[in-house]
């Protein structure tokens, strides 16, 4: 469990995080939901230690991370896996070497064979067992995200952070990546935090959702509660998509039109 206590951050007097309090639960996909520029990435960077919050503290399973001793912070960092928005693969290394990298750096005591087994297992887990020799420049965006996930989970991380895992992906690939993150979280019982502004992800994998708006937490709950939430900003956010508006219009124009549409059998994708 990760606890965020009163985290504040400002850039040049411009407050981006205005005292965030929340918890990310173990064994669940915790979503940080919010529009662009609401401070989601800044909050994530504060949590993983890439940025220092001006005020407040962050606790990983009871151990304080913020302003603690270097050794203790380092100990926590080694349990963190992170998938970056642009995947951030090392572009001078192959897919295999990218996945092996954290093992080489963080667990030098591992033998070559153990390392190879672990890398092969992780690549297989994300469905890339045949792409080990490819360079990052040769693979698609969706595959890059998969490699990013493999690299993040390779050292047996306890905490997995994903910054907009769906950005730049087509809807079908997005769903596959979401499912992968969700499955991995439940399989290994890790604490996962996913940044998203995509309602598809929310209804798909939102075990626990935290809604941020202009640097403040306005709501938290799960995917079954979110559609009936009463917070106006959240309702605005959910129902502002053109798809929802178009659907509403269809619904209003033809009595029960939406239901009729929903009952039509979907063709296999």
């Amino acid at each position, binding site marked *: 469990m990760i606890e965020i206590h009163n985290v504040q951050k400002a850039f040049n007097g411009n407050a981006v995080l205005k005292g965030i309090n929340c918890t990310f639960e173990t064994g669940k996909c915790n979503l940080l939901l919010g529009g662009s520029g609401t401070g989601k990435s800044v909050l994530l960077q504060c949590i993983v*230690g*890439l940025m220092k919050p001006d005020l407040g503290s962050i606790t990983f399973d009871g151990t304080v991370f913020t302003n603690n001793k*270097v050794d203790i912070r380092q100990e926590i*960092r*080694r349990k963190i896996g*992170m998938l*970056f928005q*642009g995947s951030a693969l090392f*572009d001078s290394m192959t897919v295999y070497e990218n996945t092996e990298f954290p093992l080489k*750096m963080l667990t030098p005591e591992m033998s070559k064979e153990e390392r190879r087994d672990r890398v092969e297992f992780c690549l297989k887990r994300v469905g890339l067992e045949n792409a080990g020799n490819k360079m990052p420049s040769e693979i698609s965006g969706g595959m890059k995200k998969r490699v990013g996930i493999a690299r993040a989970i390779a050292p047996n991380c306890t905490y997995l952070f994903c910054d907009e895992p769906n950005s730049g992906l087509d809807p079908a690939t997005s769903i596959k990546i979401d499912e992968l993150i969700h499955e991995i979280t439940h399989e290994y019982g890790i604490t996962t935090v996913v940044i998203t502004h995509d309602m598809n992800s929310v209804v798909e994998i939102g075990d626990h959702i935290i809604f941020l708006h202009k640097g403040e937490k306005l709501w938290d709950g799960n995917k079954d509660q979110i559609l009936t939430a009463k917070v106006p900003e959240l309702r605005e956010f959910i129902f502002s998509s053109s798809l929802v508006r178009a659907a509403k219009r269809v619904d209003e124009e033809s009595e029960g039109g939406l239901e009729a549409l929903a009952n039509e059998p979907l063709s296999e994708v």
Partner: protein
Amino acid sequence: MVKTFGSFLIFMQSMLVRKERFAVLWKRTIDECVLIGTDSVFIVSVVAAFIGAVTCVQISYNLISPLIPKSTIGYMVREMTILELAPTITSIVLAGKVGSSIAGGLGTMRITEQVSALEVMGINSASYLVLPRIVASILMFPLLVILAMLLSILGGYLAGTLTGAISASEYIEGIRSDFIPYNITFAIIKSIVFAFLVSSISAFKGYYTEGGALEVGAASTGAVTNSIIAILLADFVLAAILL
């Protein structure tokens, strides 16, 4: 200016704390050495050979007095290339080649969050990425400078004999007369100082890139300009101190 210098010193210091294991850094250093070597050996050779050739031809053009022996041409080519042209021109060429590649490489890693990815793993990215590049430069620059000295003298020989300005034996007599070994030491000291300046300035520029592809380009150009100015300043200071 003072502020930039201060953050440069902090950057240098951050490289030396929380270092990675020696084996890891050493392997990275060797990789960088190979990269610098393969990247620049061709351009350094071409530049050095032509500078030697041009120096030889121009000196013989200027030496018209029959009282001065022809071998002086060989002597002067040697002195000029060893003391000044080989270390300084080679380092300026390397500032363009190695400096821009260090700044561009680090800048790209920064804006594509590869630096952050290292940091999240608990790796000191400055020490992992920058230290090997600086050490590799310090190892490789002197070697390339020595190569440049040899090729310059060879270039002078070819140019002198082919144009008929000087005979082979006169040239060789010239380059063997009044040789001061300290000049070689001085040139190597210079190349080590230039190596440190080019690699650290370029790394500093690249490591703190912010923004996008445009800024990476700007960081590369900035790295080259600043490195060249630093080389020329240091050249003057070293000559004043050590000669």
